[in-house]
C-alpha cells in the first residue's frame, strides 16, 4: 500500500493553509465565519453562519465558545475534517445502474473545520450547516445522516472546484439481476480518510460490489491515497481491513 506523504503548508489550498499554521485569527469558510481571540490562559471562539437566501430561519445567531487553557501560549489551528456522520447525496436527477454494469461517480461532500490547541480539539464545526436526514429501510432501522444534494458526476473534469468540499470516487458494480436505483446514495464519510493533492480535497475511494444476492452489498474502502496526495485527517471510525458488508437499502434508496 502506498503511504501518504507528510502534511506541509503547501499541501492544502487557501484559506486552510494559513489556518492550519495558526497564523490567521479570522476566517470565512464557505458559510462559516469564525474568529479566534487567543490570550495566555484562554481562547475565545466566535462564529456564525451566513444566512441562506430566502431563509426564514431565526436561530442563526452568533455563538461564542470560551476555553480555558493552562499557562503556556497555545497555537490555535484550524484544519479540515470530514463530517462526523454519513452524508446522503441525492443526485439532482434520479439515476439507475443497469444489471451487470459498473460505473464510477464523483460525489463531493462538505468539509468540517476542526479547531485545536496543540493536540486538544476545542470544537468541530461544519463549513455549511447541512440538514439532518434519515437513511434506512424504515423509521426503526437506519441511521441519522446529513443530507446533501449532488450532481453525482461521471467525469472528474466537470466536478466544480471548492476548497470546502472533498470528492469521493464511488465505483458501483451491479452484479445483480435488476437495476440499482441511485435516488439517494449513503456515503459512509466517518470511515474515510481525508487527502489533499494541493488543490483538491479527496477521500478514500469506495468500491461497492452488489452481488447476485440482492439484499447485501460489499463495500471496499481503498486506503491508497490518490496520486500526489497527502493525508490530512485519518478516518473518524476506521474499519479493519477496509471491507464491510451492508444491506443495499442502507447504501442506496
Amino acid at each position, binding site marked *: 500500500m502506498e503511504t501518504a506523504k507528510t502534511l506541509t503548508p503547501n499541501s492544502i489550498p487557501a484559506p486552510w493553509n494559513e489556518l492550519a499554521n495558526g497564523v490567521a485569527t479570522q476566517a470565512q469558510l464557505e458559510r462559516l465565519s469564525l474568529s479566534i481571540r487567543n490570550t495566555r490562559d484562554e481562547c475565545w471562539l466566535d462564529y456564525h453562519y451566513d444566512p*441562506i437566501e*430566502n*431563509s*426564514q*430561519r*431565526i*436561530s442563526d445567531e452568533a455563538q461564542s465558545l470560551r476555553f480555558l487553557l493552562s499557562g503556556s501560549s497555545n497555537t490555535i489551528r484550524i484544519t479540515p475534517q470530514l463530517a462526523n456522520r454519513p452524508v*446522503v447525496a441525492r443526485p439532482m436527477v434520479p439515476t439507475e445502474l443497469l444489471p451487470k454494469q459498473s460505473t464510477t461517480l464523483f460525489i463531493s461532500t462538505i468539509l468540517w473545520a476542526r479547531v485545536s490547541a496543540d493536540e486538544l480539539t476545542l470544537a468541530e464545526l461544519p463549513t455549511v*450547516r*447541512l*440538514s*439532518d*436526514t*434519515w*437513511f434506512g429501510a424504515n*423509521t*426503526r432501522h*437506519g*441511521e*441519522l445522516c446529513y*443530507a446533501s444534494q449532488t450532481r453525482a458526476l461521471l467525469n472528474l473534469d466537470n466536478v466544480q472546484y471548492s476548497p470546502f468540499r472533498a470528492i469521493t470516487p464511488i465505483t458501483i458494480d451491479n452484479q445483480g439481476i435488476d437495476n440499482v436505483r441511485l435516488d*439517494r446514495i449513503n456515503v459512509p464519510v466517518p470511515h474515510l480518510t481525508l487527502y489533499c493533492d494541493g488543490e483538491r480535497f479527496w477521500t478514500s475511494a469506495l468500491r461497492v460490489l452488489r452481488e447476485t444476492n440482492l439484499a447485501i452489498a460489499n463495500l471496499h474502502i481503498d486506503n491508497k491515497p490518490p496520486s500526489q496526495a497527502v493525508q490530512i485527517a485519518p478516518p473518524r471510525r476506521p474499519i479493519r481491513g477496509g471491507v464491510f458488508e451492508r444491506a443495499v437499502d442502507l447504501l442506496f434508496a
Partner: protein
Amino acid sequence: MSAANTVQNVLGAIDLQEAVRAAVLLTAGLVFSRLYVRLARRGTLSHLPRFLQRLGGWLIFTIFIASALHQLGFKLSVVLGAAGILSVAVGFAAQTSAANIISGLFVIGERSFIVGDIIQAGNHTGEVLSVDMLSVKLRTFDNRFVRIPNETIIKTDVVNLSRFPIRRADIKVSISYKSNIAKAREVLLRVAENNPLCLEEPRPQVNLQGFGESSVDIQFSIWSARENFADIRDAVHEEIKVAFDAAGIEFPFPTRTVHIANADFMGMPRHELAVRDEPSTRDADDTKHDA
C-alpha cells in the same frame, strides 16, 4: 427440658466432621453467590436490574444453606414444609407486594423500556431511573421523583418516547379562509427545508385536516432526531409565524356571519354583517342586539 439443655443436646448430636463440612459449604455458598453477582454486573446480565442480578446470588446461597443444614442432619422436608406454610401466610399478608414482584418480572421480561429511557406512564412523563422489585422510579422533567408500582405499569398504557432514534412532531396550523392554501403549503415546506434539524427524509408533510368554524385546519408533520425533538417543535412554531407574516398568510380568529332575514326590520335594508366574537367590538354587540 430447658432451652439450654435442648441446644446442648443438638450440639452434642452434631459430629465435628459434619460441622466442618457445613461450614465449608456455607463459605463456598457465600463466595459463589458473590462471584456470581459480580460477574452478572460485568457480563451479559449487566443490562438486568440489580435485584435480578442479586436474585441469582441469593438462590445459590440458599442451595448451599440447604446443603449445609442437610450435612448437619436437619430434615429438609420439614424445613420445606414449614417454608411452604410460611410462604402461604406471607403471601396472604403481602398480596400487593407479591403482585408487584410478579408484575416486575413481566415488566423486565417484556423489555418495553430500560433504565435511561423516557417514558409516559399514566399522568407521568420522565426518565426511568430504575426498574426495581416493587416499582419503577422516574425523574420527571420538572425534577420530581415518581414511584410507580409495577402492577400499575402492567395495567396502564406505557409510551416509550425514546425507543426509536427519530420522532415526528405534528404541528396544528390554522389559516383563514381568505388565505391561499397552496401558498401556505409551500411556505410550511420551506420552513422545514430551512431548518437543519428537520429531517429531509422522511419527508415533511402538510395535510389538510378539515374546515373549522373560522379556519382551514392543517397538520404540518416534521421528523427530527429524538434528542432534537423539543427544540425543533419550539423553533418551528416561531419560524411558521415569521414565515406566514412575511408571506401575508393570516392566522384566523373566530368570526360569525349573521344574516338578517327580515328586510324591513326596523327600517334597515337587507344586508349581511360579519360579526366578530370579541366582547370589546362595539359594532358586533350592537348587531347582535338588533338581530
